[in-house]
């Protein structure tokens, strides 16, 4: 089922085109990442999806509601985490008071609010600091608190606009785990924007690459890699007699096998079973392997190629 469905969305600010004819469909339970450098149009796209911004042209649906005609229903059913660390966090309230306030704003009754707040504090690892003022906790904890506000209600769509920006490595790691967990537990559809390639690679089911408001590609990371390179290189360091090495080379001639200085090199179709096949052959021939390495294009290389910036 499609949770977000956009058709031909265009938005201009003055003479600048922020989004140009964007059409995309995001499926239920998917982590969908919009990847682009600053000014690519990522935030504009999120704002349009949550109806805080009207497109100049195009249409679509979000959660089955019409993007242009049912904006209030959409706004009441999506959760947003904006990149500013402490948005929605009042520094002079305790961690728990902050969440209790938002629970009421989101329409939870008292008993449900208390239950959800406790549960959220535990999930986020903030339960032990629940009675501390928000101004006393770290920026990472405040960011988690901001996310806690967004997941108090189990909205089916969670919009995360660069959620790990300004976080230290440890907080980034725990937040990414948390994002995976809530998708798994609540089947929440997550739309994430980021300019961190490792984050996109780690979390995403599919990625949209935006460049100056234009959608360059939307696909799974594997398929995006396939687009820029049909092959990957495999290197196997192993001790083999000249006869056995020749046998391997001739057996895998189609993979352009070579053997030099104790290293076998193969060029195989990307994301194929070739690696398994090759290793299996080595085992059968009793060739001792000391190291295996493969190199396929990284997401960053893919991005640079697709945006025309690869050197």
């Amino acid at each position, binding site marked *: 089922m499609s949770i977000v469905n956009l058709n031909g969305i265009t938005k201009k600010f003055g003479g600048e085109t922020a989004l140009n004819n964007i059409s995309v469909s995001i499926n239920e339970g998917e982590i969908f990442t919009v990847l682009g450098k600053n000014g690519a149009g990522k935030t*504009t796209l999120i704002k349009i999806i949550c109806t805080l911004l*009207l497109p100049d042209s195009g249409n679509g649906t979000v959660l089955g509601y019409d993007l242009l005609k049912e*904006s209030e229903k959409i706004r009441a059913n999506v959760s947003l985490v904006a990149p500013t660390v402490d948005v*929605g966090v009042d520094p002079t309230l305790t961690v728990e*008071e902050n969440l209790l306030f938002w629970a009421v704003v989101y329409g939870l009754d008292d008993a449900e609010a208390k239950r959800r707040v406790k549960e959220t504090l535990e999930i986020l690892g903030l339960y032990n600091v629940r009675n501390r003022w928000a101004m006393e906790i770290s920026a990472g904890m405040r960011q988690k608190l901001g996310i806690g506000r967004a997941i108090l209600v189990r909205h089916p769509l969670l919009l995360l606009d660069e959620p790990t920006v300004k976080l230290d490595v440890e907080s980034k790691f725990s937040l990414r785990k948390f994002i995976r967990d809530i998708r798994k537990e609540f089947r929440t559809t997550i739309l994430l924007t980021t300019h961190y390639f490792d984050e996109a690679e780690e979390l995403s089911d599919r990625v949209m690459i935006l460049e100056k408001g234009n959608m360059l590609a939307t696909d799974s990371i594997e398929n995006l890699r396939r687009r820029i390179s049909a092959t990957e290189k495999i290197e196997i360091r192993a001790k083999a007699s000249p006869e056995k090495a020749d046998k391997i080379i001739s057996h895998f001639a189609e993979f352009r096998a070579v053997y030099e200085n104790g290293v076998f090199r193969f060029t195989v179709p990307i994301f194929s079973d070739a690696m398994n096949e090759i290793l299996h052959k080595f085992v059968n021939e009793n060739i001792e392997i000391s190291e295996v390495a493969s190199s396929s294009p990284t997401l960053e290389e893919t991005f640079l190629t697709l945006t025309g910036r690869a050197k």
Partner: protein
Amino acid sequence: MRNFIVQLRSVIAFAKREYVIWTSYKVNIVTWILDVFINSALFFMLSLLMGKHANIAPYGNNYVSFVVLGLSAYYISYTNLGDPYDRVARIYWNGTMDLYLLSPLSLVTPVIGIMYRSVLDDYPRVLLAFLFGTLFFGAAFRFMQPFTILLIVILLGISTFGIGMISASSFFLLNLKVGTEPVKFIFQDIIIALAAGYFYPISVLPYSLQLVSSVLPHTYALDALRRLMIPGGNPNIPVLPIQKIWHVSPIFSDLVILLAMSVVFLFLGFYLYALGIERARRNGTLTRWQ
């Protein structure tokens, strides 16, 4: 019905939150009481000086009481008229505007909710002004028709809040994010400062300014409250321009005009605010987050 309950519970949650924040600054409360006392005392001492020469008929004969009511109207209207713009600006700049919009709250619920900080800060000043005026400066009051008095205070609150919402709408409608807000400036800093009659009867103003004062809800609220609450006040002698051409009881005409102003200003305020939000959604100025 459930939606109404969500709005109501949210307004109460805002009130609780603002109270917790307000009372978390203990020193602030002490300085606040001192501030109200000094401010009130200043006006009361001036009124003691001028009161001997002041002709405030038909509003009784106690000029300090006259000033207490003027100060009270000032505190209420200053909050209701002046603060919506500031509060909308606050939630815009701290980024929570987006979050309130992405919730089941109506457009105006957060504005009403966030206004509690001002209400906590300014409304008790009315009680303190009454208390200080009565205990230390000789003010005296009567409470004829308490229901009418309450109704007038409520209508003054609603109508000035309506003007406040018109002012707040300019934040988005005119995209005025910083600087002087024109509606507030015109009403509060020009018309009200000159013609609201906080400290003198409207009748002392030139006739042209009396006509200007006719657009203010304060004029009618103060006229009725002073007639009803100051000992010796006369409910029947016409003072305001409208009362001289509309031959009904002055208090009745005050009530009708206040009611009409409440409906018109509040409706206009909400309508323009919603229009401003819609315009901001279109031109991309609704949220600070970029």
